[in-house]
């Protein structure tokens, strides 16, 4: 972190749903290019935290900064435009659109092309080539014209991440990318993430510790909405408090 520019900074972020406090005074700074995991038991507030960072939920108190700029009140789509991409815990694709159309939606999001309405998409060859090249990276190019619905679960999880990568983000938020995947498929996802450029900052929520140790170098542990540990993977592994939270289970 030292020396590198701050990519994402949370400053005393709290979230209450009525009388229920989900996040309390969560603060951390993630440097550019850093790969950080957020772990914690179910109900620790991990997904809520993501929804706040991505701008889908308003926070009760605190501030969110992205490359130094205050984005606390910025709507989700503007954050995405600024370079923040996310994936969802439950696959959130466009099921009735083809695989390539899904990718194109991510690719054209920042281009003026999205407002073109008097020329059919079949004219946009270079956009389609770009999408196929991305699909090729996960071996799905041959299935470009099938509906996303027709893909297998593991393939959908790959497309889920591919959409976020297609946004060419500066910060990538991954919400349990391997949730529900067989071990073989989980390693496909891990390989995908490891192949990404070094300057992308990745924040990962994950229960599969194999994936976590494979992808990240730093861990933040959430418990009952609070940060209870924050440090290198090695340091967290040796933390007694964290062992306690995971009911004595060895990390």
């Amino acid at each position, binding site marked *: 972190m030292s020396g590198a520019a701050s990519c994402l900074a949370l400053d005393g972020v709290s979230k209450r749903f009525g009388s229920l406090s989900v996040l309390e005074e969560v603060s951390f700074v993630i440097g550019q290019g850093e790969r950080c995991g957020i772990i914690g038991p179910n109900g620790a507030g991990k997904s809520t935290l993501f929804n706040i960072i*991505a701008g*889908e939920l308003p926070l009760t108190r605190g501030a969110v900064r992205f490359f130094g700029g205050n984005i606390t009140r910025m*709507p*989700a*789509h*503007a954050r*995405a*435009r600024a370079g923040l*991409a*996310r994936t*969802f815990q439950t696959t*959130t*694709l*466009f*099921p*009735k*659109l*083809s695989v390539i*159309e899904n990718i*194109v*939606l*991510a690719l*054209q*999001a*920042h281009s003026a*092309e*999205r*407002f*073109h*309405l*008097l*020329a*059919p*998409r*079949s004219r*946009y060859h270079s*956009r389609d080539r770009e999408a196929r090249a991305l699909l090729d990276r996960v071996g799905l190019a041959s299935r470009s014209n099938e*509906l996303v619905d027709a893909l297998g679960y593991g393939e959908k999880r790959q497309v889920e991440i591919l*959409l*976020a990568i297609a*946004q060419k983000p500066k910060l990538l938020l991954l919400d349990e990318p391997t949730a529900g995947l067989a071990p073989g498929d989980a390693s496909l996802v891990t390989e995908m993430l490891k192949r990404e450029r070094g300057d992308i900052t990745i924040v990962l929520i994950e229960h599969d510790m194999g994936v976590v140790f494979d992808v990240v170098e730093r861990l933040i542990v959430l418990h009952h909405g609070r940060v209870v540990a924050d440090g290198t993977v090695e340091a967290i592994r040796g933390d007694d408090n964290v062992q306690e939270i995971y009911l004595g289970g060895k990390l």
Partner: protein
Amino acid sequence: MTLQRRWLIAAGAGFIVALVLPRVGVPTFYISLLTQAWIYAIVAMSLDLLVGFTGLVNFSQAALFGVGAYAVAIAATRYHVVDFFPVVCIGIIAAVVTAAIFGLVALRSEGVGFIIITIALNEIVWGLAYQWVSVSGGDNGITGIVRPPVGPFDVSANTGYYYVCLAFFVISLILLSIIVRSPFGLVLKGVRETPRRMRALGYNVWLYRYFAMMISAGFAGLAGVLFAWYNQFVGPTSLSLDQSTQILIMVILGGIGTLYGQLFGALVVVFLSNELSAVTQRWEMVLGVVYFVVVMYAPGGLVVLVPRLWARLRGLRPAVERT
């Protein structure tokens, strides 16, 4: 032969039939009903852009249609603007401006909330047409609207006017077909499918819904203009909630998200309601049963029946179509 080419050939053949119908002795009554069907098909397609492609079930389409119709009447009777193309433009602009206001109110909400708000908006506009007598003529409406010539062509007779409406239907179908296949159209489909992911990708979902409402309103307003000239009269029933429901029924009957299917929806509703009302006083009940049967047995709309019947005739399984 690819599916797409087969459709193009079918559409071309249909268009030629539509062109020759008035020339081969079809009674004026039916020509007049067909004219009505072209007009309703335009407004049904405009609604399909919202329901089928953007995922917005809008119950205020009749209000936009009616605003287009009233614009013709008011422009003619108050301001003596009667020329064809200026009036068409005025009608379209009036409907788009109305939709721009509707959108600000209705798009604060989505799903059922959006539906309820659009119902309320339609009622407000109907209330204005019904009670603002000095402008709208109230329940009596506005009479004395004359069909202006299109350039050098006199279209005041039913046959001439039939061709005007057919032309606008074809232009609308082509334009809307291009729009839904464009990059912008893909964005609308994305908004329909998964607005949450669209936001995460960086799309301002609200803005695209707003644009879709205004584009849709342009076509609804155009249909309203044609409808005013068709009847040579405008009254509050043209923008009633019943009318909105009727337009939505055409969309459902024809096939949501198909555009061209709306022509079949419009044809069925226009012809059945006219033919049945001549036979029985309980024609609305019969219509209800027809709608029910279609929704039960062809939930994708009448257009899905065509390939299905075709396949059965040839002993094939129907090809799975993509929306």
